[in-house]
């Protein structure tokens, strides 16, 4: 009976219902997309590093695991020492060059031969390896997003590069240039930002790590598994705060709209509340009706929010193919819980106010 009354009330005021549900949908969609985008980007970056195929990452002392933030190069000759460590199969240096034209990208300056030996080599969708110093390799996603073709000249770091090849994505960066060119651009010589190290067997990771620690220079050794575990929003400076702030804004939107909606509803339905009171409805009964109505609005909004997030994800990926959006069941659950909780909290004061109305005054309300 109460369900029917709640549904009738909701259907009786379609605009209010639509606006309230839309607010909740925006809340849910915003939470899912913001979290999905940040987590997606972080995880996608991590997967690309993992995709290089190394077991260990060697960086200068005190450098950040966020590669774009640590360009401090190490001498290239360290690579020779690393290669001599027992159970090391391959070593590949990479020099990071930060490009901010057309979005922020880390360009890998690589020695193609060693990089190929370590990673198993690129899969070329078109074109082939570098043939000159001003050649660039781009991955298929970047190429598609920027409509880049093999042989095309592209401006990068204030220089014209010829696209030598389009490679399968997933090996460290989206853009690769010869190591020597990267050194020229940064004004350094025989330097690398990182060394990727592959062991003969994964079981040797620990012993190789210890051996590298014993080398002079105190270089930072990061097993790839540890790196993957570090690549979460919790470990990225400011990202968690950003996500929390965005979630806070989204929840506030939902809370305020439901609060306003239920508050005006109570005013509008003062007389109806008086009628229920005259029939003997307790305060709890009236509070339950209002909260259930808010809950139902919230559920409709949550479902719409899921749909909106799915559509939003498609739109984002269509517009920005290099981005990654991860919509996870867990965050769908979190977003729904936040929306429901926000709605119930938003409806609670109006519900309490309704329950405390004087029945005689409520019945006399015009």
């Amino acid at each position, binding site marked *: 009976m109460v369900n029917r009354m709640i549904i009738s009330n909701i259907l009786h005021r379609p605009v209010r219902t639509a606006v309230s549900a839309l607010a909740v949908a925006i809340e849910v969609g915003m939470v899912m997309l913001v979290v999905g985008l940040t987590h997606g980007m972080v995880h996608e970056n991590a997967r690309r590093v993992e995709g290089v195929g190394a077991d260990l990452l060697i960086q200068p002392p005190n450098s950040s695991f966020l590669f774009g933030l640590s360009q401090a190069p190490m001498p290239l000759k360290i690579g020779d020492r690393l290669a001599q460590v027992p159970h090391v199969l391959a070593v590949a240096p990479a020099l990071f060059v930060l490009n901010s034209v057309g979005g922020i990208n880390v360009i890998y300056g690589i020695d193609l031969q060693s990089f190929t030996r370590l990673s198993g080599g690129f899969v070329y969708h078109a074109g082939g390896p570098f043939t000159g110093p001003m050649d660039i390799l781009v991955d298929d996603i970047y190429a598609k997003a920027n409509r880049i073709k093999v042989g095309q000249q592209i401006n990068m770091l204030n220089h014209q590069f010829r696209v030598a090849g389009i490679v399968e994505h997933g090996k460290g960066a989206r853009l690769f240039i010869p190591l020597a060119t990267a050194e020229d651009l940064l004004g350094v010589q025989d330097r690398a930002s990182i060394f990727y190290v592959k062991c003969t067997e994964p079981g040797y990771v620990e012993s190789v790590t210890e051996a590298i620690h014993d080398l002079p220079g105190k270089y930072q050794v990061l097993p790839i598994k540890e790196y993957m575990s570090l690549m979460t929003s919790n470990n990225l400076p400011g990202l968690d705060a950003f996500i929390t702030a965005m979630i806070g804004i989204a929840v506030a939107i939902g809370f305020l709209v439901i609060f306003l909606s239920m508050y005006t509803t109570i005013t509008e339905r003062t007389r109806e509340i*008086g009628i229920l009171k005259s029939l003997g409805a307790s305060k709890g009964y009236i509070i339950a009706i209002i909260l259930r109505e808010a809950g139902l609005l919230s559920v409709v909004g949550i479902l719409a929010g899921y749909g909106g997030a799915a559509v939003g994800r498609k739109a984002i990926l269509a517009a920005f193919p290099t981005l990654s959006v991860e919509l996870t069941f867990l965050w769908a659950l979190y977003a729904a819980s936040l929306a429901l909780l926000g709605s119930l909290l938003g409806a609670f004061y109006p519900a309490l106010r309704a329950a405390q109305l004087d029945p005689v005054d409520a019945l006399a309300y015009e």
Partner: protein
Amino acid sequence: MDPIIATRDLRKVYRLGRVEVPALRGVDLTVQEGEFVAVVGPSGCGKSTLLHVLGGLTSPSTGSVLVDGNDFTRMSDADRTRFRRHKIGFVFQRFNLLPTLTAQQNIAIAQHIQGNGFNPHRFQAIVEMLGLQEKLKRRPYALSGGEQQRVAIARAVICEPKILLADEPTGNLDSENSQVVLNMMRTLNRTFRQTILMITHNPEAAAVADRIIRMRDGRIISD
């Protein structure tokens, strides 16, 4: 036999800012179970306040109010609400149906609030007696005033209240519909020994009752 309603020196004072407005100034009233009582008097004489106090919608300022053996002056708001749920039925001048519910739902909601669930036999008997079989699926806006008031009466008596309190039940009806509603209240009183206390301005309506009480300035002036 104890009266179902007994008030002694019942007073009710409303406060409007710093001004005290006495609505009831010492009402002594007894109503026996099964009586049909009409309360008449000019506007502002305290009729509606008396009805609200007897229905537990508001508390008295002083005096005693015993309804079916329960002393309202000693009851909390929650206790009076519970009492109202089980023992009192209201019929209002403006019908006061819930606009989003059908006639059937408007009647059934009283049973739901009472918490004893839907009683189809009682429902059927009341609906047939009030001639509402064809109107049950309609919402209030699709019913005439007379039909709406019949639905309101059905809602008021569906839970078998001890007392039916009617506040100007014919006040918004034409004479034909007024007569229908009054006949139904009379039938309820005669058939089910329903105790009814009805407030009215209308002498013809009051004439249907067994007993007429006149009020003026918050007091009973004749019984």
